[in-house]
């Protein structure tokens, strides 16, 4: 994962974390009591989103390098 991609993913993870947190505060806090649970839930959703992105990017990268090396093996006159 490049720095730029990581930043992008990070940015949206934070945005999603805040969103989940806000939803919790607006709708669930009354029923589900505790603030800290909401905090934990929100942060874990954010981390989950980030790491899934990380994982996907790595797999993509692997696949890309695979295709690249496949491509390298094709004889030049075929291109």
């Amino acid at each position, binding site marked *: 994962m490049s720095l*730029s991609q990581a*930043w*992008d993913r990070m*940015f949206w993870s934070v945005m999603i974390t805040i969103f989940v947190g806000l939803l919790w505060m607006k709708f669930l806090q009354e029923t589900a009591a505790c603030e800290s649970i909401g905090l934990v839930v929100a942060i874990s959703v954010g981390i989950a989103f980030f790491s899934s992105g990380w994982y996907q990017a790595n797999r993509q990268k692997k696949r890309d390098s695979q295709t690249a090396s496949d491509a390298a093996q094709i004889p030049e006159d075929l291109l």
Partner: protein
Amino acid sequence: METQRISFGLFFRHFLILIILIVFLFPIYWMITTSFKSSEDILTRPPKFVFEPTLDNYRFAFEEADFTKFIRNTIIVAGLSTILVVTFGSIASYSFARWNPGDGHIMFFILTTRMMPAIAVIMPFFLIFRDLGKTDIGNRFYLGLDQPGALVVAYTVFNLPFAIWLMHSFFQDIPMELEDSARLDGYSRLQVFFRVVLPLAAPGIAVTAIFSLLFAWNEFLFAFVLTRDDARTITVGVSSFQTQQGILWGPLTAAAVVCVVPMLVVALFLQRYMVRGLTFGAVRG
């Protein structure tokens, strides 16, 4: 377009524009006529279109309300901040258009700084400038409260995102080949920017400059909070015609007219540069 013939459609189009202009300029016309009305002629039923013009309102604005000072302050603040915005903004925008440092994220971040509601940041700004004014450097650059430097900085910061984004597409439309061939001619990167890119981006820069100037010229909240008397700008001066004796419509409109005229002159002057865009297509091929 050169091939266009004089036809009914062309006349109709101009007629339509005339109507649109009348609609858009009517409030301005009303403002100007009101500024020449005596106070008895302003709040009447029905409103008066014909009246005996008087210059009293202008006399009041300049003699009683010290508008000369407000205008001077506004020119300094709006002019300086526009220069800074265009200078810093154009090089940054050019860099974003050519090399896109930060892969778009820095640019996006810059845009987000314009989204913060001004009211929420006004208090921190007030405190920053209060403290800056007490330091040597702040004192030297007039950065304290009720000093023009504070407003210049505030407007520059708030208009930079706008300027960078607005100029971006204009810079990006400049074909790379032109720059490349200039480089081959032995131009340095700075020369390329100043001699090739800048002239070609003139319409974009002119538009940006006009808007930066307008925003700074007309800004109210910062001008109101960060100044008291010495550095007060014209918009705040105008608002002080809302008095406990009622709104002084005559002087208020007179001041507003005085406020608009310089902008009209600037617009008339800069619109020539916007026309430059027309020749641009020819270069591109």
